[in-house]
């Protein structure tokens, strides 16, 4: 339950924006430009801030960013580890998902891969409260949608 003070000083939120930006590589061009520009957020400030804060990640890793835009055109953002599909593609060693998931298999990964990805995801601020099991289930769901089969062990 938020305190009265928090409620009174809470800024009104205009929107929640999600996008993927390469670490250290934010520029005032697509995808950042159109997504933030429509809410009149300060693109330069976001790019500079994002680039400085993602210096600790390997350059150009696609980071998932969630931006909370406030009605007064200010914003806050949180950076999360890359999307599950990116990890799955890396684990499966493929460039893109299957063209017909469920029918044509793109590749296979093992449960160990799923577990490793789940561990990284659990360190995200949004997933911290979820159990490894539920995160893993969600990862397996995404893998299936991409046409990646999850095997218990890889030979």
């Amino acid at each position, binding site marked *: 339950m938020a305190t009265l003070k928090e409620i009174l000083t809470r800024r009104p939120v205009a929107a929640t924006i999600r996008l993927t930006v390469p670490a250290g590589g934010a520029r005032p061009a697509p995808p950042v430009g159109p997504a933030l520009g429509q809410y009149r957020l300060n693109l*330069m400030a976001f790019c500079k801030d994002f680039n*400085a804060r993602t*210096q600790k990640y*390997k350059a150009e890793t*696609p980071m998932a960013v969630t931006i909370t835009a406030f009605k007064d055109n200010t914003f806050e953002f949180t950076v999360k580890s890359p999307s*599950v599909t990116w990890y799955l593609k890396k684990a499966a060693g493929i460039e893109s*998902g299957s063209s017909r998931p469920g029918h044509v298999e793109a590749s296979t990964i093992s449960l160990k891969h799923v577990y490793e990805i789940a561990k990284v995801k659990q360190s995200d601020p949004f997933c911290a409260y979820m159990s490894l099991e539920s995160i893993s289930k969600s990862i397996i769901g995404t893998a299936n949608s991409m046409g990646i089969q999850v095997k218990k062990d890889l030979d």
Partner: protein
Amino acid sequence: MSPVLCCFRNHIFKHLACTNSLVRREFSLTKLLSVKAVPLSTCTNASLTSPFLSVHIQCRKDFADMLSEALLCFGASSTSIDEQDSHVQNEEICISSIYDISKDVRKSILHAADSIGLKDLPTYKIVKGYHSDWIKDIQDSFHPVEVTKGLWIVPEWRTPLDLQATNIILNPGLAFGTGDHPTTKLCLLLLHEIIKGKESFLDYGTGSGILAIAALKFGADFAVGIDIDPQAITAARHNATLNNIGPDILQLYLVPSEEINSPSENNSTGFEGQGSYEPEASFDEIVKYDIVVANILLYPLLNLADQIVSFAKPGAMVALSGIITEQLPRITGRYSEFLEDITVSKMDDWACVSGKKRRI
């Protein structure tokens, strides 16, 4: 449409036609770190003149966050959800998503919905969006900024508020350096304080050229700005003209990002078809400066420390910024072997480190 707006728009479109290659090029700096660059699947091939797809998807409120995340995994460039005023639980809300013009939107939504367990394809509507709209919105958000008493940064399309003050007229285009970022302000304040007149100045990573122009306005004799981004050099040249600063006192060079020390026969390697930038004289690495400022990012500052400091005369002032306060120890640690009398200034969560180059 005002001629100024037209000019700005042309300026951007002309120089951003190859945004794609620009992004890849800039980060070949990472080769210094021996890091394998990941192909940028999110980087668009569309230039800013082609439209993009703005897709509005209807979805139940309690699934909206999950669907947004899934959409990003399956091809959307970005998603946004406007904040709802009511708190009805099962209400349908709209997710606005942006896609490249070349993407198969239906397939993406299908996969995304499927991956979170939705049985039916959500209803959606596709509208064409144009980059000029958001570019205009950004322009509208630039206002004159008073950095300190008597020093203003004024966008090209606005009139200065105080004609007696030092006004730096800027059109940042899409290069870094609009004047309102804390690091730019910290550097400007430092320059304002230390420039007495007649100094030579190097702006390492010049962006829009704002620091070089400011240095000249404060009394420096001449300034050189270098950057690895051709867009920055073009923006800086334009800004120099806006402030009546000619190439005799402000020289701007595009430098290759891998090794600035290697003499380059052709400064624009890798940028065929730029059209707007012709390589002239190359940057002379032998010249040393009275003041060197590098307002960039942590890793380039750490990796290029030797080079950055090598451009300073012994006893010259070197200033580094573009770092957040938690990154300070690494910078001061790295540069303490080169600089003495190190001082740190801070604004919000940003810092600027300055010191004098040690006389060996």
